[in-house]
């Protein structure tokens, strides 16, 4: 996809407050079912309850890899939406701490860009279910942002 088209998609999504087109661009995001909600200037990402995302069938609990994939993609979308990167950021490394079981219900994530240089961005992600103050996981990652 050209940089112009991606730029245009981001601009339209902000204008219409409808991020579906941006989400639908990425098959993996559709597979696990990521959604974006804009609350004022804040962006919150939502992963709706979905039986296909379950790892442990007994609790039942979401697969840790899905929680990680959700958080990684939230960070990527966040950069795309707020940092004016005209192309998809590329993952360099990703580190996650699991703090509580991710139960079979909706999961939310919010991102904090701690640093964006010309070449690399550092993003921290928090994921929660019932209360934002009781995260189920925290993660941090680096993205390469300098070239397509």
């Amino acid at each position, binding site marked *: *996809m050209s940089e112009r088209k991606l730029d245009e998609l981001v601009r339209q999504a902000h204008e219409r407050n409808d991020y579906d087109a941006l989400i639908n*661009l*990425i*098959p*993996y*995001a*559709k*597979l*696990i079912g990521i959604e974006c909600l804009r609350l004022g200037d804040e962006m919150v990402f939502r992963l709706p309850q979905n*039986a*296909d*995302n*379950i*790892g*442990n*069938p*007994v*609790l039942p*609990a*979401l*697969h*840790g*890899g*899905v*929680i*990680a*994939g*959700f958080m*990684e*993609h939230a960070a990527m979308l966040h950069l795309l939406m707020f940092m004016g990167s005209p192309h*998809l950021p*590329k*993952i*360099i*490394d*990703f*580190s*996650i*701490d*699991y703090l509580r*079981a*991710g139960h079979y219900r909706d999961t939310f994530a919010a991102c904090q860009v701690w640093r964006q240089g010309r070449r690399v961005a550092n993003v921290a992600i928090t994921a929660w279910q019932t209360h934002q103050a009781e995260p189920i996981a925290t993660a941090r990652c680096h993205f390469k942002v300098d070239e*397509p």
Partner: protein
Amino acid sequence: MSDSDTSIHARSERFLSMLRHCQVLGLRVEHADRQGLTLRLPYSDQLVGNPDTGVIHGGAITTLMDTTCGISTACVLPEFEICPTLDLRIDYMHPAEPHKDVFGFAECYRVTPTVIFTRGVAYQTSRDEPIAHVVGAFMRMGKAGRVMDAGTRDGGQGA
């Protein structure tokens, strides 16, 4: 294959078959013995993270490696234990090639009564050319985690 390797293989397959999301991704046990576990993630269009290149999303690689590291505990434990992930770190050496399956290999390099330390790689052609390096720590649940059939008790693998 020795008897114990056969049972490690069977235990790994049973473990994997219980994880619904892994069935959605089509994960399969490629190889399992006392030295470690290898799983296969088949390439699929629904796992794409970059529509321009067709490269698989990092999230699918993370799921492959979380699962591989988690189930690799079966290679060193005498009986079935559910070990939830404490943390996981992935370093990408280079992007996966599109339209090719990805393999995950993991081994346990230290087992204590409370924690199991695992490490591994994701690769496509050879383990010597990894697309990602991974380390992960898994918690041991004590008695609560040791169940004959994991389907009978609570636990939190991968959560």
